[in-house]
């Protein structure tokens, strides 16, 4: 037994050396994780910070100006154009100078004075539906606050209701807070999978796998030796993203590191199982790489990282059950943001365990039956 352990350690060392031997490949293990977490941490926002708008004010009244002043006062809305007529509006929106065009009709003040409803027309460029939805909500909030003021000024009964909103786990509803934890799992998965898939394929392409087979190592030992280094590298990469989230973006972590890492370890193990199966199935490095990407892209997209799984049709939701990333992202987000303990993430851990329990023996079987 100790002999087997020693052999495995030796193989692990050899594998780690093969991955880490030259500076370029050492850099490629660290730089992408660092650069991507930095870029995407900043890029990942659904919150609007700058809304260029065009204003066509045909009423030229005081109330209309008050409303516009409130819009400008948000610091988000920035007037970029004052079209002279409705025809002009089309041009500035088409050419993307303005995201929003506001048209206030000539009878705006009269209708307000009569105590009625005075509509303003809002035209939103919905080429990006998400941005359009947010811009609409922002304008609506400003108009609502303005209406409350109008009622107060007019001495009309105020709204008798106040809705007191609070957001759990992410008080300011920052997109970054849920994206960064998700990326702890997502960014490390790619290279874990790729390194594992390449490890056997490279040996086969270079003909060194046959040499490995004639050593005293059993196929299971070879597999363990091939599995451990990518797990370590995957955990190291996850740690890089975790450190970025904690100290660069300062997203507070609610849960415990021990829970987080036991989840991540389970996840990397499941990824390695998939990687080894790919590795055993492909004839050369290029195939291993291409199959990895063909697999990983749907996995990324169907992981719930960028769009909610609940919005997917039933069939695709079922398909995500075989996706370790889906469970890992849920697990990391819950531990990181909600601070849940190990017991609460069992529903995520069990599927990861199941994926590892299927793919690792499958890979071992494939090694024996396709290689030997």
């Amino acid at each position: 037994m100790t002999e087997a352990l020693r052999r495995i350690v030796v193989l692990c060392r050899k594998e780690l050396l093969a991955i880490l031997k030259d500076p370029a490949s050492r850099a490629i293990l660290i730089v992408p994780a660092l650069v991507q977490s930095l870029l995407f941490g900043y890029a990942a926002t659904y919150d609007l910070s700058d809304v260029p708008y065009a204003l066509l004010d045909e009423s030229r009244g005081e109330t209309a100006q008050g409303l516009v002043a409130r819009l400008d006062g948000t610091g988000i809305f920035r007037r970029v154009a004052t079209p002279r007529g409705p025809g002009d509006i089309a041009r500035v929106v088409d050419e993307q100078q303005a995201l929003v065009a506001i048209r206030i009709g000539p009878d705006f003040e009269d209708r307000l004075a009569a105590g009625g409803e005075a509509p303003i027309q809002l035209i939103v460029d919905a080429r990006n539906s998400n941005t359009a939805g947010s811009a609409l909500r922002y304008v609506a909030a400003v108009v609502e606050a303005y209406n409350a003021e109008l009622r107060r000024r007019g001495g009309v009964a105020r709204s008798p209701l106040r809705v007191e909103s609070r957001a759990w786990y992410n008080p300011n509803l920052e997109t970054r807070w849920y994206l960064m934890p998700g990326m702890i799992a997502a960014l490390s998965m790619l290279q874990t999978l790729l390194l594992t898939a390449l490890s056997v394929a490279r040996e086969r392409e270079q003909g060194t796998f046959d040499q490995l087979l004639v050593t005293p190592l059993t196929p299971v030992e070879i597999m363990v030796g091939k599995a451990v280094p990518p797990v370590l590298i995957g955990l190291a990469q996850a740690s890089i993203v975790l450190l970025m989230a904690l100290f660069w973006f300062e997203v507070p972590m609610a849960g415990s590191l021990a829970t987080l890492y036991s989840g991540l370890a389970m996840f990397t193990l499941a990824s390695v199982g998939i990687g080894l199966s790919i590795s055993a199935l492909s004839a050369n490095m290029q195939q291993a790489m291409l199959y990895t990407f063909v697999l990983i892209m749907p996995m990324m997209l169907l992981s719930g990282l960028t769009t909610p799984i609940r919005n997917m049709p039933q069939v695709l939701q079922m398909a995500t059950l075989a996706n370790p990333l889906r469970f890992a992202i849920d697990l990391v987000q819950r531990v990181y943001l909600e601070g849940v303990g190990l017991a609460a993430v069992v529903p995520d851990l069990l599927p990861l365990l199941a994926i590892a329990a299927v793919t690792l023996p499958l890979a071992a079987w494939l090694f024996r039956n396709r290689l030997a």
Partner: protein
Amino acid sequence: MNDMRAPAGQGGGFLFRLVSLVRKEFRQMWRDKSNMAMGILLPIALILIFGYGLSLDVKNAPVAVVLEDASPAAREAVSGLELSPYISPSMLASMHEARRLMRERAVDAIVRVPPDFSRRLAAGHAQIQLLVHGADANRAAIVRGYVEGALGTWALRRADRGAASAAPAVTIGQRLWFNAANTSTWYLVPGLIVLVMTLVGAFLTALVMAREWERGTLEALFVTPVRPTEILLAKLVPYFVVGMAGLALSLLASQFLFAVPMQGSLALVLLGSVLYLLVALGLGLVISSATRNQFMASQVALLTSFMPSLMLSGFLFDLRDVPVAIRLVGHALPATYFMDLIRTLFLAGNVWPVVLKDCAVLAGYAVALLAVARAVTRKRLD
């Protein structure tokens, strides 16, 4: 045999060598199933996932309603939630249960009407508590907006009931141009074309060429009479064809499966796509000859082409809202211009200032990258 040795500049020899090389490349590509998996299978999978799987729209968000005050006024206050197509409220008996469901993420929000609601409502300052699950911030903000809107509308109507004069109020008549229903499918599917082209153009090409460099098979080609330009062209042609096949698939799916309107002209969509495909192919060639190693090439291609076209091109996150430094990075990427172009052509139409600017930028990138690729591919052994 004569035309094989034809000196440079003689059309016949050039064409003959090119055609033979292209035939060889096609066969090579066809023979390896993993190439076809990437070139054809993955685009189909992406089309289905983007069209059916990805949606940022909030519909029927589960919301727990806890009425600690059973008065008619309280029931009336929350009745507006039922009418909203975005929210599906369910009545719960206790906050304890509601909190449990929220922790399990079975509901997106809790609306709590406190026991003293109707008493305080009579006094004119009632409160309703709204708790949203903030883990998915975007969804939480949308759900919060809908709930507050529904409750606020009820409150104002109640305030105005029996009042002598109606209160003046500004209302919003909203029109969403280019995507009236504001469905995310309409903006995700055109973006899909960008991803498919990037995948085939930059990624697949980088991998395939890097393999030739790594295994030294390119050097074997160098000793034949073929010229570097011919080698490059022969590599480009098959992947150009695969890329255009991916484009055709995406276009067909967008029209017939997802019914995304195409306001602009098909000719311009094709022109823009050809330009971007050339950019992507050029990028793939440059990456492969700079790295000459499959693993490195795949990583660099992923880092410089695929991930940015997903995250930094305005595909998911609007570039208007990111910090300036990131916006500059985004605007240095050709994918950003193609994304802008394709989305405008699909949803807005032939907006010439946008079309001309984007096409010019893409053409510039295509020429520059292909020139660099040609410059670094020299008959040299090292």
